[in-house]
């Protein structure tokens, strides 16, 4: 079914930060974008300076930077001045504890103020910040801390006891653990250290190419990849926040993403603050009534959320949003996975404006392709490349890379490298990093097409990665955890369609000879996976098989399991040696 284009009125278009996309795209240069940040003397800069200090210096200290809503509904506000003082204290704590420039500081926290203070204080101190999603289990946590060589961790007493304390011996680089509440052996209480130190700190003047952030993303095979981003990325965070999210100083802005994922850092901490907005942060998980209340009562102007949440709001029906006042809302955007056209159109009827889908990845550091405020929306499309971004649809073969220029040709979505927030590497994994590039293009791993108007459309993934509730999950990580169980002989993990979450993780498990496939064992394996991986990564569905389909070389054919699950053609099965039973 074709969905009609949603037009934008002249009034809406003219009011947007970028009123004329074509003209801005043609004249854009990253050097001009760089002028929108202040930098530090001698060609140096620091993300935290752009996010906080420059606003305080310009007299905006009293503006609210962060309005935090606790699970119980209590509101706490932090002005830019307060955020400056608290992040100074945090940077001093790092120094007091012997953590020097370049040290890796990890956070394993829910969305509490300490998370935001830790992120920005770490950057101020010239340390590398790495956020971990608090719903990770011990195994993903251990892998990510080991690969990144974590030197310090900020977490809660509860998360520490449940997920980290047993890992301490396996993490020799981890020198300090700071708890935001409670106490435990071999840890220090953050508030005590914060109170005892100064609220003055000279922000480290960093080389633009110094590492600032480490984000982990899943691979199809092997360990998770540590994606390296540098301080210069702030140039892209700032301008993309302005163009793709239409952020303006003084806006009230709500990014619902958790900073454990890249969206929650690039657009849940950095871009909003560099653009001097007031951020809303809600500690609680998704809840229909609560979310409508926040949009209404906090008078949110710009809202950046995800397809899973939008679909749950749709499902809750009209009564749930009736009686709410959304007149403050000016712009709504979505990211994480392609937003289905029905949801874009639902936004238009429920809020009087469509959701603006956009596309990017942990590797790109910032939004690359987007539906813009002044541009008509084609429901289901990811939009057009940001100014400064050259995108293409390409086909690769042994002969090299070829651009597909005819409209609607399906190929891999590729980008010309060179924007400031592009990753600078996968930590300790040069070969995997090099594999992302071909003939001067960065290959995204996503299949897409471009229509005759220049809009891009997502088609599918070119690999086995699973996208569940907007989070990328590597099947190998899940399979490895299940293989550790003594009853398991082999396992394959795929993503199966889920009407709310996009995909959910499903595991096919073959047991060792002589072991009975009982319901009790199924639950035991599920519990094992949850204990190792946490609820965000563990399978939601598990089935037993006597045998899994394999190639002659013994490689399990996830692709075939998925085709069968979806009722699709099985494709080329010439390499199939041993079939599913």
């Amino acid at each position, binding site marked *: 079914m074709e969905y009609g284009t949603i037009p934008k009125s002249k009034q809406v278009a003219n009011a947007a930060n970028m009123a004329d996309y074509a003209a801005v795209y043609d004249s854009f240069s990253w050097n001009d974008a760089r002028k929108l940040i202040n930098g530090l003397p001698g060609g140096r800069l620091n993300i935290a300076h752009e996010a906080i200090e420059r606003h305080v210096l310009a007299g905006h200290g009293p503006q609210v930077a962060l309005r935090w809503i606790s*699970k119980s509904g209590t509101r706490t506000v932090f002005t830019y001045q307060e955020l400056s003082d608290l992040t100074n204290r945090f940077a001093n704590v790092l120094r007091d504890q012997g953590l020097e420039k370049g040290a890796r500081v990890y956070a394993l926290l829910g969305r509490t103020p300490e998370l935001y203070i830790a992120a920005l204080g770490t950057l101020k101190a010239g340390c590398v910040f790495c956020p971990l999603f608090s*719903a990770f289990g011990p195994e993903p946590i251990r892998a990510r801390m080991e690969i990144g060589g974590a030197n310090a961790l900020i977490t809660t007493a*509860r998360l520490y006891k449940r997920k980290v304390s047993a890992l301490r011996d396996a993490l020799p680089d981890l020198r300090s653990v700071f708890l935001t509440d409670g106490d435990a052996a071999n840890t220090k209480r953050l508030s005590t250290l914060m109170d005892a130190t100064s609220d003055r700190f000279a922000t480290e003047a960093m080389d633009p190419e110094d590492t600032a952030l480490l984000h982990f993303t899943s691979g199809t095979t092997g360990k998770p990849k540590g994606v390296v981003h540098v301080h210069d990325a702030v140039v892209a965070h700032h301008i993309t926040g302005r163009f793709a999210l239409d952020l303006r100083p003084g806006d009230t802005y709500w990014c619902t993403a958790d900073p454990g994922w890249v969206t929650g850092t690039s657009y849940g901490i950095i871009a909003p603050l560099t653009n001097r907005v007031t951020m809303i942060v809600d500690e609680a*998980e*998704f*809840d*229909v*009534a*609560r979310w409508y209340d926040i949009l209404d009562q906090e008078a949110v102007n710009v809202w950046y959320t995800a397809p*899973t949440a939008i679909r*749950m709001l749709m*499902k*809750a029906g009209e*009564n*749930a949003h009736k009686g709410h006042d959304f007149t403050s809302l000016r712009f709504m955007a979505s990211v994480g996975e392609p937003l289905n056209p029905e949801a874009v159109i639902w936004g238009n009827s429920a809020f009087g404006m469509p959701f603006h889908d956009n596309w990017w990845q942990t590797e790109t550091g910032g939004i690359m392709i987007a539906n813009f405020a002044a541009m008509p929306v084609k429901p289901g499309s990811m939009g057009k490349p940001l100014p400064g971004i050259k995108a293409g649809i390409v086909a690769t073969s042994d002969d090299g890379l070829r651009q597909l220029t005819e409209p609607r040709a399906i190929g891999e979505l590729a980008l010309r490298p060179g924007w400031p927030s592009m990753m600078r590497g996968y930590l300790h994994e040069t070969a995997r990093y090099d594999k992302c590039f071909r003939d001067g293009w960065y290959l995204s791993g996503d299949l897409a097409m471009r229509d005759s108007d220049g809009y891009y459309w997502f088609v599918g993934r070119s690999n086995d990665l699973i996208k*569940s*509730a907007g989070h990328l999950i590597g099947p190998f990580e899940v399979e490895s955890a299940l293989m550790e169980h003594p009853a398991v002989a082999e396992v394959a993990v795929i993503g199966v369609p*889920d009407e*709310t*979450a996009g995909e*959910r993780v499903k595991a096919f498990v073959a047991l060792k000879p002589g072991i009975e496939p009982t319901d009790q064992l199924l*639950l*035991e394996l*599920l*519990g*094992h996976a*949850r*204990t190792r991986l*946490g*609820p*965000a990564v563990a399978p*939601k569905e598990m089935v037993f098989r006597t045998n899994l389909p394999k190639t002659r070389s013994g490689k399990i054919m996830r692709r075939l399991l998925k085709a069968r699950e979806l009722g699709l053609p099985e494709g080329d099965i010439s390499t199939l040696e041993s079939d599913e039973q």
Partner: protein
Amino acid sequence: MTDQDIETALTQELHRIAPDISLDDIDPAQDLRDEFDIDSMDFLNLVTALGKRFNLDMPETDYPEMRSFNALAAYLRTQAA
């Protein structure tokens, strides 16, 4: 249906979603999702399973009344009565 029946049913359904967490290890008055380490999708699956089992409509607008184990048990007692 007795209160005991309801608690047993709730415990069984939770066990299918979070078999690694025992009722003895959690605080039934605290946040259910935190205590059982379940995410939004797990919670939806739990509500769907309970709705089926008790033949109840459990709309999203009632979710605030299901925030802890005790609250959810109380909700089921009222609705299934």
